């Protein structure tokens, strides 16, 4: 009896920890989505495709650099940068012409982008799936007081707060953050005082997509990298963003915590339909607060 309680308690807390680690990537991806949504008002469906692109790029870069730990860390930086560069090109040549259109057109346009990215991935990497190994320093797990925590999960648990702090710094302490916050509310006003809003938007879009790429390269060693891995993450990110409040990065953090925790606890309760739990959480949240948990700070 005593043992059983201890076991479930242990497995519960283990599940929570692993869930939290997975939450990290969710947070990184959805905060990027939320940023773009809040400042540029683009419901970016291609965000998932950029995430996938990040994963594939991380795979290739790591391989090119010989699969070492250094190569892995380099890919964590280079793959998101490459994704950010692609997004910059897309923003400058295509999206920047469409800012006056309504959400529906922007959604469809980014869907078109997602379709194209998917096919590009198909052309470059082929239709099969790829997998890459964790660098040896991240293999295995720590154990303390009966809990087993994979080393990589611990790494992710460290990366998440770092990204959150970085974003906070970016939004509140840098010029571009202040301008973009102002631009989100009064676009014409910011333009009128002589700031080139268009480039601020480009920068924000790049940062948002960088986060998508970062999320992709972080998950690359933990799951098989395939075409279509974008389809589920984008829906999850959407959910998190609605739950947290459109355009609110802290909302994205809170949302991904709720999402990750309900999901990982759901696995314990009802494995086959664990997916129901996060959705139920979202519905409850939105019935209570139709505009999301946190107010849009933009």
């Amino acid at each position, binding site marked *: 009896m005593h043992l059983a309680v201890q076991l479930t308690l242990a497995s519960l807390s283990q599940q929570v920890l692993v869930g939290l680690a997975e939450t990290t990537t969710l947070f990184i991806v959805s905060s990027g989505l939320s940023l773009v949504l809040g400042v540029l008002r683009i*419901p970016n*469906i291609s965000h998932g495709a950029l995430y996938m692109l990040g994963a594939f790029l991380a795979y290739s870069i790591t391989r090119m650099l010989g699969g070492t730990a250094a190569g892995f860390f380099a890919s964590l930086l280079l793959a998101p940068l490459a994704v950010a560069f692609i997004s910059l090109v897309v923003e400058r040549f*295509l999206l920047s*012409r*469409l800012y006056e*259109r309504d*959400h*529906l*057109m922007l*959604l*469809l*346009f980014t*869907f*078109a*982008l*997602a*379709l*194209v990215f*998917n*096919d*590009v991935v*198909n*052309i470059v990497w082929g239709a099969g799936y790829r997998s890459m190994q964790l660098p040896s320093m991240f293999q295995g797990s720590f154990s303390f007081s009966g809990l087993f925590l994979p080393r990589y999960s611990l790494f992710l648990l460290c990366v998440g707060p770092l990204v959150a702090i970085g974003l906070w710094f970016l939004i509140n302490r840098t010029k571009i953050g202040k301008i973009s916050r102002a631009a989100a509310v009064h676009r014409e006003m910011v333009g009128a005082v002589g700031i080139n809003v268009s480039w601020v938007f480009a920068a924000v879009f790049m940062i948002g997509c960088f986060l998508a790429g970062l999320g992709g390269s972080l998950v690359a060693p933990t799951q098989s990298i395939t075409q279509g891995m974008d*389809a589920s993450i984008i*829906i999850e990110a*959407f*959910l998190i*963003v*609605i739950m947290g409040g*459109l355009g609110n990065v802290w909302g994205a953090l809170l949302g991904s915590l709720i999402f990750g925790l309900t999901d990982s606890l759901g696995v314990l309760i009802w494995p*086959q*339909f664990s*997916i*129901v739990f996060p*959705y139920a959480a*979202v*519905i409850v949240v*939105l*019935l209570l607060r*139709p*505009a*999301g948990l946190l107010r849009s700070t933009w």
Partner: protein
Amino acid sequence: MSEASSSLAYRLRSLRRLETFACLAAVIVLLLLPFVLPDFYVYFAALVLVTGLFATSLNLVLGYGGMYQFHHAVFYGAGAYAFALMLTKAHAPLWLACLCAPLVSAVLGFLIGAICVRLSKLYFGMLQLSLGSLVWAIVYRWYSFTGGDNGINEIPLPNAISSTTGAYYLTAVVVVVCLFLMYRIVNSPFGKIFQAIRDNPQRSEAIGVNIRLHQLKGEVIAAFFAGIAGVLYVVVEGTVVPDMLFWTVSLEVMVMCLLGGWYTFLGPLLGAAVIVGLRTFTGAYTEHWSLILGIILMALILWLPEGVLGLIVKPANSKMELSAETGRK
């Protein structure tokens, strides 16, 4: 003054006569198709009609209601699954299954609508997308009931409607009836007020319209017709797969509405014909369908946001305005 209005009335009447002729001609063509076309093209025509019905039902809320219906495929899939499950699991008679499946869709439309309709426009769309994905996930994972990713095959259908020609005729008749009904709805007081809400929700509220209720009704109606399209899909294809209610399908149907022109009634049908046609016939030459679709979509949004039919209808309207202008002077 009365001259102006009577000439307007005359023009409307002659337009109506033209429309009636066109409809009759279209129906006759539809009836004769199987006699002149080989089997594959008959099947293809049926698929176009089904997809067209699906797209038109989406346009009911998207183009006429101005609602961000981001995940319409759920109702299409729900109708198809309800139909297939009633036949395979409950062994229900065919007529009962045909009747109940669209109702299941309508009920689902009511549930999702009731949750979403209180939210603002973009939230509505995004939450609907998410809830729809939940339905997909349940269908996908519930192996014992829905067959999971295998879907449902070997659906017992009588020979009369499972043959290519039989399926075609059933589809054609049902689609024509549904299009007629939807046309009536669009031009009914309900439809007019729906368009008013699309154009200006604040104004609509101020003339005494209960927007949320109206949108909820619209959602249920659209879901119902999408459910009928789902049933017809089963009849034509003889199978159901969970991919039918995946969110990319919803966006693809939106592309059809956009391509044809979502402020026109027949636009989505035209769009469906073009997209289904392209997908079927480019499939023979290349596997890069999503690249092609993506590029078409980008081009549409950049250069043709009113759609093909929208482009034709628009000049007609401005001409009308011009004549009224000169009439006043």
